[in-house]
């Protein structure tokens, strides 16, 4: 007998062949280019800032309301001294002071306010701070050049107070206030606006609150991200990394499936190649493919920092092995192209769920934590969004490693059994 062929030689040969097959398959190439180009482009097109200030339009302005109320009360015989007290120490302090995160813009005409909220008129803030309204529905109305460079103010909520509002509040009467909201404003915010008006009215009427808050008012547990909210662009980082790995799962599953369907595994098995060589080669190729592309996309969307690169590489490696394992299961299971597609959807759609839970906070049910991709996504979110380090991540890291180990063993066993049964 001749000298046995080394494992390195056999592995090298299979890997070279896999690379050739991969490079020549138009579907694989399409998936790769999609992952690299399209996702990166999408990332940079998504807004990277979060608008934290809610702008509320009111009508009439506080100044107008105060003046009108003072005139009215004076006519009813209120002393000048009392009126000054109302104007300076109560009314102005209670209602004109804008709170953090809330900007109040006064629009004198209620119709204009309604149209701006509705979208048929646009509101602009000029360089000198003056506001100007532009009617988009007016015939032959060309937008003035000064507005083209001005900042457009989004007004999603408008409060229309009646002219007797303050008088009614002070004298213990009742008043109806109209709230205009854009259709896109969530119901919760609409209700919050009602609460805002009630609170303001309560204070103007001179009532105290039956509850007190500590000086800090709100105690933030964990990191206070006020002023540093996570933008949609940042939220996309883990999602895009996961998408790239999923696309590579399709490609890898297809590569394995073609070996099964064309029965080339049978031809390999009568050579000095052992089945272990085949499984090792598929593991290396799948992992390298998913890892390199995932890392490249993360690099192109600026996810690596001097502090996180080693941790992020490790997590991406775990993710690459996880999805290669899934590819082995899918590739071995499908009996034809449609079968493979069905299995691919069956396995990959649930794996996407944890990533969407990141985009839509509050939607994740507790069972999502049992999805194999959950700890991987959890780690990615921590590293790429919240800058978590090793110390805070041992739990998810061990959980992720456990899932990777379980799925990898299952993937190997299924593919081995398939190869031996052909």
């Amino acid at each position, binding site marked *: *007998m001749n000298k046995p*062929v080394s494992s390195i030689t056999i592995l090298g040969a299979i890997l070279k062949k896999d690379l*050739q097959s991969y490079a020549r398959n138009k579907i694989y190439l399409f998936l790769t280019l999609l992952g690299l180009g399209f996702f990166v482009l999408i990332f940079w097109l998504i807004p990277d800032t979060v608008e934290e200030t809610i702008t509320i339009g009111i009508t009439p302005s506080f100044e107008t309301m105060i003046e009108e109320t003072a005139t009215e009360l004076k006519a009813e015989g209120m002393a000048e001294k009392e009126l000054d007290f109302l104007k300076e120490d109560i009314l102005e302090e209670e209602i004109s002071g804008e709170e953090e995160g809330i900007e109040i813009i006064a629009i004198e005409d209620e119709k204009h306010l309604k149209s701006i909220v509705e979208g048929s008129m646009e509101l602009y803030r000029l360089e000198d701070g003056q506001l100007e309204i532009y009617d988009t529905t007016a015939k032959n109305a060309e937008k003035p050049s000064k507005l083209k460079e001005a900042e457009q103010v989004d007004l999603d909520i408008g409060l229309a107070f009646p002219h007797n509002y303050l008088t009614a509040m002070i004298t213990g009467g009742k008043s109806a206030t109209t709230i205009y909201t854009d259709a896109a404003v969530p119901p919760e915010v609409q209700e919050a606006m009602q609460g805002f008006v009630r609170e303001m009215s309560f204070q103007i009427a001179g009532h105290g609150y039956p509850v007190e808050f500590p000086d800090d008012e709100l105690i933030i547990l964990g990191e206070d991200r006020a002023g540093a909210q996570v933008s949609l662009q940042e939220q996309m980082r883990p999602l895009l990394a996961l998408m790239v790995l999923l696309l590579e799962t399709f490609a890898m599953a297809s590569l394995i499936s073609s070996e099964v369907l064309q029965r080339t595994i049978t031809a390999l098995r*009568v050579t000095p190649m*052992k089945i272990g060589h085949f499984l090792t080669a598929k593991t290396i190729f799948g992992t390298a493919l998913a890892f390199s592309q995932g890392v490249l996309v993360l690099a192109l969307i600026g996810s690596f920092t001097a502090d996180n690169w080693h941790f992020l590489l490790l997590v991406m490696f775990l993710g690459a092995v996880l999805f290669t394992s899934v590819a082995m299961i899918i590739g071995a299971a499908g009996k034809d192209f449609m079968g493979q597609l069905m299995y691919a959807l069956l396995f990959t759609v649930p794996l996407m769920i944890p990533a969407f839970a990141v985009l839509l906070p509050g939607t994740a049910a507790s069972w999502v934590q049992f999805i194999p991709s959950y700890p991987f996504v959890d780690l990615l979110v921590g590293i790429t969004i919240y800058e978590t380090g090793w110390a805070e991540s041992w739990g998810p890291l061990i959980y992720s490693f456990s899932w990777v180990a379980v799925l990898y063993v299952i993937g190997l066993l299924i593919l081995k059994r398939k190869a031996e049964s052909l």
Partner: protein
Amino acid sequence: MNTPSINVQELSYWYGKLKAVNNISFQVMPGEILGFLGPNGAGKSTTIKVLTGQLKPGSGKAQVLGREVGKEDPELQAQIGVCFEEKNLYLEMSALENLNFFASLFGIKKPDSMEALRRVGLAERAKDRVNDYSKGMRQRLMISRAFINKPRVLFLDEPTSGLDPVTAAEIRRVIQEESKRGAAILLTTHNMMEADQLSHRVAFINEGEIVALDTAENLKLKYGQRAVRIRLRNGTKITEELITLDNDNASTRIAELAASPNLLTIHTEEATLDSIFIKLTGRGLEG
């Protein structure tokens, strides 16, 4: 040269409860071509799968080049070549790349793949993707792949099945060249004529059992009828006479008719492998 390259003793294999191979025994010597003749489902391919290590023997002994089969044995695998009935080639790769890849699995650093392709008439299309090949071209590539490591034992499963006569003849020529090189060849086929042309010995396999094993000549002699058919012109008619050679007066009668001016043709009447197979099993080879 007395050591058999393939040595099978009382080999059986079951698929569940179905006994696909039933207690078969045979040997193939170096340079010998053993034709495995039998209809579909007779157990030919299963025997090859066992001998090439794809299946573990159910019972009995199966050796190739003196080594037990049934487990992964890279050293033994390096010495064998297999041509499968199904054309399991890498379609997206060229013929040259297919051969180079398999050569590298055998540890051949500088394979002469072009020469191997030239041998089967594919040199001019060496760099074309196999996906663009015809069925006959793919089969020639399968043969070429089986020979790439210059194997000492070859397993050829229906190597000319469904091919045109010219391509089939080319492949038979290459198989004979390999036999002359010294390779022991186990050839499965249900083409009686091919087995007759190529094989040094023939084994009839039916329902997992070997029902006859000998040279084609011996089988014909053993199971066929020795006779001569003579055609004569008789006026405006043509008459035939069948003379059985085992008859005592046969030689006298043949001489008599041969001397006749009315003699048209004399043909020996040999049994075909197909007719012998039907005689032994009660079924045809194409079944």
